[in-house]
């Protein structure tokens, strides 16, 4: 693997680390199976690309994209909490609705950002190559996002969101407004995804209506791979694990792209991802089973 390809994997991994953080919040902290992500990722890209295309500042465009993601997540939560639509279904509805919304926002399926200013080009220091600079700036952004998430979810309100996710009946009994917590949690989760979409559009040449396909699978795979590498129930480690998972996932892709000699290609990647996630899900159970067998008072039969 060349240096360029290595840094490319790190760069794209860091962008998807924000998706992984968002997915971690919805799936793990809130226990809300949220597929909105497949729509809010291109939503972030669309809002950011159209604003930059129309001459707005890239900083403003990135902030607007993040807010747009938050609104999308809020609506999914609202469909679930207020209209009592099943969580998974609410997110699917939002995901397909966003397809049309994104086309409206962009006014077409594709907005290129090839020579336009982006947050990356505006902040780029003299003499630093862009393939070094982009991952570097992303690393800083992801670290800031990670610590912001860690901090927020240890405040009283953040803890209330986590309580809502782990036992909503108990949380209500403690006087927590669980409905409001779901809305807030979903908004934060999709804000991170919208930000990720905006950064993707700014680094990869523009926004395209198809850029959301499979985002949720990548996010989920990152979370699960991260949990397998760094198993911990503490939020500080769990959020770090999601980030590491996202980057490691990109290395698996890079490996698949670079392993012509064993016959693996990029097109096999979906299968590899499915196998990887299955493995990560099954192995802990398997280990537990083995440990039980080693106990002295375990059943004698093999």
């Amino acid at each position, binding site marked *: *693997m*060349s*240096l*360029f*390809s*290595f*840094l*490319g*994997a790190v*760069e*794209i991994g860091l962008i998807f680390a924000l998706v992984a953080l968002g997915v971690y919040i919805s799936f793990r902290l809130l226990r809300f199976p949220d597929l909105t992500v497949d729509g809010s990722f291109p939503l972030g890209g669309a809002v950011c690309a159209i604003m930059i295309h129309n001459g707005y500042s890239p900083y403003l465009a990135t902030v607007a994209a993040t807010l747009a993601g938050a609104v999308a997540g809020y609506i999914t939560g609202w469909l679930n909490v207020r209209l009592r639509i099943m969580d998974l279904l609410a997110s699917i509805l939002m995901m397909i609705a966003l*397809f*049309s919304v994104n*086309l409206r926002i962009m006014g*077409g*399926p*594709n907005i*290129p*950002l*090839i*020579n336009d200013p982006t947050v990356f080009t505006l902040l780029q220091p003299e003499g630093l190559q862009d393939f070094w600079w982009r991952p570097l700036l992303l690393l800083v952004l992801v670290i800031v996002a990670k610590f912001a998430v860690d901090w927020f979810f240890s405040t009283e309100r953040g803890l209330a969101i986590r309580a809502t996710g782990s036992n909503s009946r108990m949380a209500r009994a403690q006087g927590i407004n669980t409905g409001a917590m779901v809305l807030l949690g979903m908004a934060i989760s999709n804000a991170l995804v919208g930000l990720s979409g905006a950064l*993707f559009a700014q*680094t*990869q*040449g*523009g926004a*395209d*209506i*198809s*850029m959301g*396909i*499979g*985002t949720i699978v*990548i996010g989920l795979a990152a979370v699960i*791979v991260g949990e*397998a*590498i760094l198993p911990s129930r503490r939020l500080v480690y769990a959020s770090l694990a999601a980030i590491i998972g996202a980057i*490691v996932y*990109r*290395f*698996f*892709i*890079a*490996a698949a*792209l*670079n*392993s*012509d*000699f*064993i016959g693996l*290609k*990029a*097109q096999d*990647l*979906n299968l590899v991802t499915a196998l990887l996630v299955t*493995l*990560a899900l099954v*192995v*802990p159970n398997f*280990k537990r089973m083995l440990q039980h067998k080693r106990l002295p008072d375990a059943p004698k039969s093999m």
Partner: protein
Amino acid sequence: MKHLPWMTLGALTLAFAAIAPASAQEKSVAVTAIVEHPALDAVRDGAKDALKAAGYEEGKNLKWQYQSAQGNTGTAAQIARKFIGDKPDVIIAIATPSAQAVVAATKTVSVVFSAVTDPVAAKLVPNWEPSHTNVTGVSDLLALDKQMELVKKVVPNAKRIGMVYNPGEANSVVVVKELKELLPKMGMTLVEASAPRSVDVGSAARSLIGKADVIYTNTDNNVVSAYEALVKVGQEAKLPLVASDTDSVKRGAIAALGINYRDLGEQTGRMVARILKGEKPGDIKPEVSTKMELFVNPGAAEKQGVKLSEDLIKSATQVVK
């Protein structure tokens, strides 16, 4: 799961081990497409054939690699990075999203795009003149005036042209936009019906009954994959169908004046060969397809209530029975 760190390490080792030093006289071409699809695959194979004809043969003096992004833009971006890191002599990028990912990531490696309908709108090149950058390529833009002339030949008194397309496909949106400008000049109007998914093609076509005199379709992926649904409506409502993809004629369209994607690939391959021989991509004008083929299906015409003129049948490259 304690094995995962080792698996990761293994994957990394694999990745690093794969740096194969290229021999000095060997040329290398790396090809990427956003998705595997009969037309896009034909472009790739055509390019390879043309390179072979120009004296660059895989395994002898050409290192050829191909990666498909499987429709995922994240993977497309990563394939772009890998290719640029490998520093091939030319990267061939097939279809808009793949081409944008590559062009956004390099200003130095030579890039030849192919099967991109509007490379100017996609900002791959500033205009249709030599770009003086590292980018050139071949567009699959159809000359729409010729397409509409064909529609007129099939249905001489057509005034309202119906079109079924996916509003999420960049290529189709370009066609709709241009038709809206072109048709009024020819005394005709455009009636749109959108099909965001392949399953919507039938109902979109049905919505055109009574509102359009003929249905014209471009190479929209949704429409092409569900063309039978369109044929069903065309026969039931005696609504003639004109396509732009010659394969659709075998499936029940009356006529199509289309690009042969294998020829488009060969045209791309000849351009790549010029760059391998030392020309600069910035000095080569972006091209459009030069070869068009007319396919007609008199049987389908009869079922859709139209009789084709002898002249039209005679001028066809192929008559489908």
